[in-house]
């Protein structure tokens, strides 16, 4: 699953839903893979305002990926003066669009429950006593 997907998910348990600690989910024992995709500058630009930048910083740190800038990059930083995609945009593209968790676990920071990721598909189904 793409790292970007984690921007939209929380722990699936009701008791965690309204707690800040249930977001983002924390990757454990994650095996990453890179899936090449064409760069879409418009997409990165319009995606940025939706990103929880703090959460993305936590994720990159936990996964041992290169650190993100302290603040969300401004739209102007996404293109060079000649209008070509900047290094910042390319880095964001690689991180958000191409970096995926192939296998591993996703842990909730509130209840500690771990969800499995297998063959790139995360399973958030809970046993009935945990819903």
């Amino acid at each position, binding site marked *: 699953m793409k790292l970007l997907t984690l921007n939209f998910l929380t722990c*699936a348990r*009701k008791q965690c839903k309204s707690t800040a600690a249930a*977001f983002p989910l924390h990757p454990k024992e994650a095996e990453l893979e890179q899936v090449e995709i*064409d760069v879409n500058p418009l*997409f990165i630009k319009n995606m940025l305002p939706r990103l929880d930048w703090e959460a993305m910083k936590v994720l990159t740190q936990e996964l041992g990926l290169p650190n993100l800038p302290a603040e969300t990059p401004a739209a102007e930083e996404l293109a060079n003066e000649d209008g070509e995609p900047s290094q910042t945009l390319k880095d964001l593209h690689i991180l958000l*669009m191409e970096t995926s968790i192939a296998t591993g676990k996703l842990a909730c920071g509130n209840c500690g429950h771990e969800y499995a990721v297998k063959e790139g*598909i995360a399973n*958030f189904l*809970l046993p009935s006593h945990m819903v």
Partner: protein
Amino acid sequence: MLPTPSTSHVNYDHIYEPSEDSYLLLDTLASPTETAFLRSQSPADSPSPLVLEVGTGSGVVLAFATAHAGLIFGRSDILTLGIDVNPFACDATRQTALLAVKEAWGAQQASGVFLDGVCSDLTAVMKPRSVDVLIFNPPYVPTANLPSPPEKYDADASGSSFDRDLYLSSLATDGGVEGMEITHRLLAQLPSVLSRRGIAYILLCAGNKPEQVMGSIRNWPTPHDGGGVWLAEKVSSSGKKAGWEKLGVIRIWRSEAQG
């Protein structure tokens, strides 16, 4: 008519096969009224909309929305995510979507970005207020009971299992009382999962008493975040029964805040 994504790789032993309801959803999303409405809710250059389909099955509807993003949403910077309770369906959805996107690229069409297929009970895993367009083709057939898993149920087990396949197939169709048991649960999640500009498209059959369903949605309390009232309209239908046709799609959204 836009081309329908290929699903020839999908194993229909345990995944719902695209049917009249799936095609009605495709037609609805591509209709002039809905493409205009979608564009007015998430205009080009507003933050990228997140499109979530719940109960993707083969993935045909989500793949269609992703591949034809330019024509439907008027923009290619949309994100699509699929949820299903059936792990086989999550995998099939990913394949169907990626294949459709690849074909769209080949045809030089503006397609959106498919994120993932994930396994979840309806929208339980979604971050609150994250979804801009939600699509749901529910198990809407009225049945005496909801399906219960066979003994020693293991969805991950490879190979074939008749009991498991029967269970997974009935999950996609059996809706319990009035065919509404699962849909009622999804409806109850909408106020917290939809964004302020969020829209939900839900397929219903005549047995679901759609007029009653829409009436109760219009009575939902006014949301605190950004105001407005809940609206629900029938936006398409198929079948030739009198009154409410056999199948229909309703659109649920929030009005502008009142001055």
